[in-house]
């Protein structure tokens, strides 16, 4: 992948808009189509594109395991935590009305936090799974005898997107 300068340059150009679009989908989900789930997937796509072109080693430097694995749980905990906070404030579990001074503002804040939790978990899980697949291949199968299955996830998948 060292010589594919067109792919590398295009990736560098595409990554910021993809991530910006993911953030837009995340935080504009109240007003247009979208939400945490789609935003998490789109944000993960930026990292997957990076991995396909620049390889799993450099991708792991951007998203190391000690970041992605805890974030898988952090999203769910944020979601469930919002429910606990509403209970502590005197409402029912996940009843966002009590989060702010008016019910509508409370609902808005609650939905924002909950969607953020969904987005975090989805992003972390997608990136972790993909990097686990790719990382496993480069380490374990590099000197495998049968070379036809040995082209590697980054080259194999990269061909499909080239």
């Amino acid at each position: 992948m060292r010589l594919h300068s067109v792919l590398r340059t295009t990736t560098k150009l595409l990554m910021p808009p993809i991530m910006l679009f993911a953030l837009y989908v995340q935080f504009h989900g109240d007003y247009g189509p979208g939400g945490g789930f789609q935003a998490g997937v789109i944000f993960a796509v930026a990292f997957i594109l990076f991995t396909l072109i620049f390889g799993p080693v450099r991708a792991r430097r951007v998203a190391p395991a000690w970041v992605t694995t805890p974030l898988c749980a952090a999203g769910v905990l944020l979601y469930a935590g919002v429910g606990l906070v509403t209970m502590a404030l005197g409402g029912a579990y996940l009843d966002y009305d009590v989060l702010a001074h008016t019910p509508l503002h409370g609902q808005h804040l609650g939905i924002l936090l909950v969607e953020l939790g969904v987005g975090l978990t989805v992003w972390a899980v997608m990136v972790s799974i993909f990097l686990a697949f790719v990382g496993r291949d480069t380490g374990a199968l590099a000197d495998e005898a049968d070379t036809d299955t040995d082209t590697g996830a980054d080259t194999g998948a990269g061909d499909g997107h080239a």
Partner: protein
Amino acid sequence: MPAAAPGGRTDAAMEQIIDIVLLAFMVVVAIAMIRLRNLYAVVMLSGIYSLLSASMFVVLDAVDVAFTEAAVGAGIATVLMLGTLALTFREERPPKRRTPLLPLAVVVVTGAALVYGTLDMPHYGDPEAPIHQHVAPRYIADSPLEVGPPNMVTSVLASYRGYDTLGETTVIFTAGIAVLVLLSGVTRRRQRRRPARGDESREARR
């Protein structure tokens, strides 16, 4: 979200033509996926199938679902399948020759039962259908006052059905952790027993 079909008869006819074309494409892609033995092509076709069903959801005015289907089905799932193929084989083994009569009978009976079941269902896009009379009118009437966001899908997902979405997020978390544990376990075992790895990897593939 129910399809809020605007416009007159020409729009409805146009929509019907688009529906038929999309469904025809989906049938063609599905048959091609069954016939092909090259798994690489099958993965690509399944991405196309997801994209077609996403277009189908757009026609139904369910843009949120279409968005998810396009991002997950056509995007992430295809990439993950390609990653799996890189670890296993690219060709499907030819099936063992058996008489196809029993499977054919099972499929025909099941299909006939399903078609018989749909005869009782309301017509496609019928505004009087029970699903449009149950809780949907309440959401449409009250969610701007109770929850606020103009996108009612978000209101339903995150507020009215907050428990469901919490459950879904937990499912994603659990599935992700399970896959990570499976993959990392195999890697560690392989590294420990380097000499015997050839046999073991063949076992792992089965």
